């Protein structure tokens, strides 16, 4: 509903929120960030594995996990936005 006075402003106060984000760019940035984090995690993991330092392997696991989650959620977002863009008239407009 667009005729509610002040309603958009009300929710726009939050620094997060989908309408403020450029969807495609956000999804790709999220996926890129996720891949980057996974690469960092893999590097730390390789070092830990090679040096047999369990603490490093643990840290690598957490970093890679966060990267993988970041990639996964962004990918799901990208998948849905792409689908919605392909079939724009069949979905409700916001």
């Amino acid at each position, binding site marked *: 509903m667009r005729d509610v006075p002040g*309603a958009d402003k009300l929710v726009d106060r*939050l620094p997060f929120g989908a309408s403020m984000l450029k969807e495609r760019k956000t999804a790709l940035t999220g996926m890129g960030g996720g891949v980057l984090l996974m690469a960092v995690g893999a590097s730390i993991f390789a070092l830990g594995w090679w040096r047999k330092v369990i603490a490093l392997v643990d840290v690598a696991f957490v970093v890679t996990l966060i990267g993988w*989650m970041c990639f996964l959620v962004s990918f799901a977002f990208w998948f849905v936005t792409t689908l919605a863009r392909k079939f724009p008239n069949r979905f*409700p407009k916001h």
Partner: protein
Amino acid sequence: MEFFGQVLTLGQMVFLLLALGLALSFEFVNGFHDTANAVATVIYTHSLKPWVAVVWSGLWNLTGVLTSSGMVAFGVISLLPVELVIHVGSAPGFAMVFSLLISAIIWNVGTWYFGLPASSSHTLFGSIMGVGLANAMMTPGHGFGEGVNWAKAKDIGIALVASPVIGFVCTALLLLLCKALIKRKDLYESPEKDQAPPLWIRGLLVLTCTGVSFAHGSNDGQKGMGLIMLILIGIVPATFAVNLSMNEAALRDLSATTQSISFQMDKHSPGSAMAGGPVADDYISAFLKPSGKIEPNTFAAIGTECREISAALEGHKSLTELTPDQRRTLRNDLFLTSEALAKADKQGLITDPAEKKAAKDLKKHMDLFTKFIPLWVKIAVALALGLGTMIGWKRVVVTVGEKIGKSHLTYAQGASAELVTFATIEAADIFGLPVSTTHILSSGIAGAMAANKSGLQMETLRNILMAWVLTLPVCVLLGAGIFAFIMDVVFGALGIK
């Protein structure tokens, strides 16, 4: 290299990472998908500023997860196909976990993208149903629909009909009651810009927001915990198959109790002999299927499992003395026996009061060995759900707050809808009602709008209803399709069986 107390290969670590990431992502998505249930009314009645409301809700979700008992977590596991649960470390077991999580994430993100408040629980159960159906179709000797818990599907059917009616009618009635009893014009008009409601309404809304957030955390958070435990049991059985903190006295007690129960079970199946554990596993697995019925050998199988548990524990001071394979076998025996005793009791197959009590006590005792959740799992899920709640909440909140009714939500409308939602969650917990919180709140807002003669946006309502009805079939198809794809294409190409 040793990881989580067990030597894992690189491949196992990658699997663990992929699966944990999926489970935590599901919780993260669940967080922002369901935030609207708690914060929409608080934001649109100006009771709390949006950022305060979502952070507050996120923190209470987090608290809900951290203080949860873990019982719901294992309830989710009991909905899964039993043969996949006991062989969760196998290729079909992993395919099950991956496919149901991917399917649930896709549908949750999809409905969130269009700002549609759909039920996350229905999404998860639809995916579980899909996996069950696909598994039954792909496994020789299984009939169509054998792996599906039809009773739960019926509950969802009831929820689909009951929740909108309860939400709509109860909220409308509550609003009309308020109008009759509380003669304050400002409660029934759109609020002035940024003007907060009277203190008591504000307090009520913040309280219900807190309650709904806490309940969501302690309920939905546990579903993720259950799936994570299943993953850990499959990949790292040495550490997670059984609760390694059980002491010598507990081991001795369980060994003695299972031995004594085994004789009672044998009395139910006189003359039935059981060749050994695997045969007993098959009998109990067949009984535990949603369509499974008691057979002459079922009690003998439970007796055999009890004797195996007793033998496995005898003479040991700690579960760490068992090898990883023995721990996994012990877990399966405990899981099957505990579930079989519960089902037999529920179906009234155990009639003798003393035996009934002994079976219940034994089940409780066995559950202590298998139904445990490490603190780090709780913290990880709490963070994922809490952070998810704080990010990306806007789409569904805008739909609930702005797109259902034709005018701005009044203080009384917001309070009535949230109060009914909160009361329904409590009632559902106490009486086990199959209702959906998401459906109750959305239809509650619609009921409040109708009672106030504010008008309804029929296009939005149609879209929401369509999403509710489509959730189950779409998730069944997604879950089944992804399961078949992973089994045939991915694992086929990798040569994993």
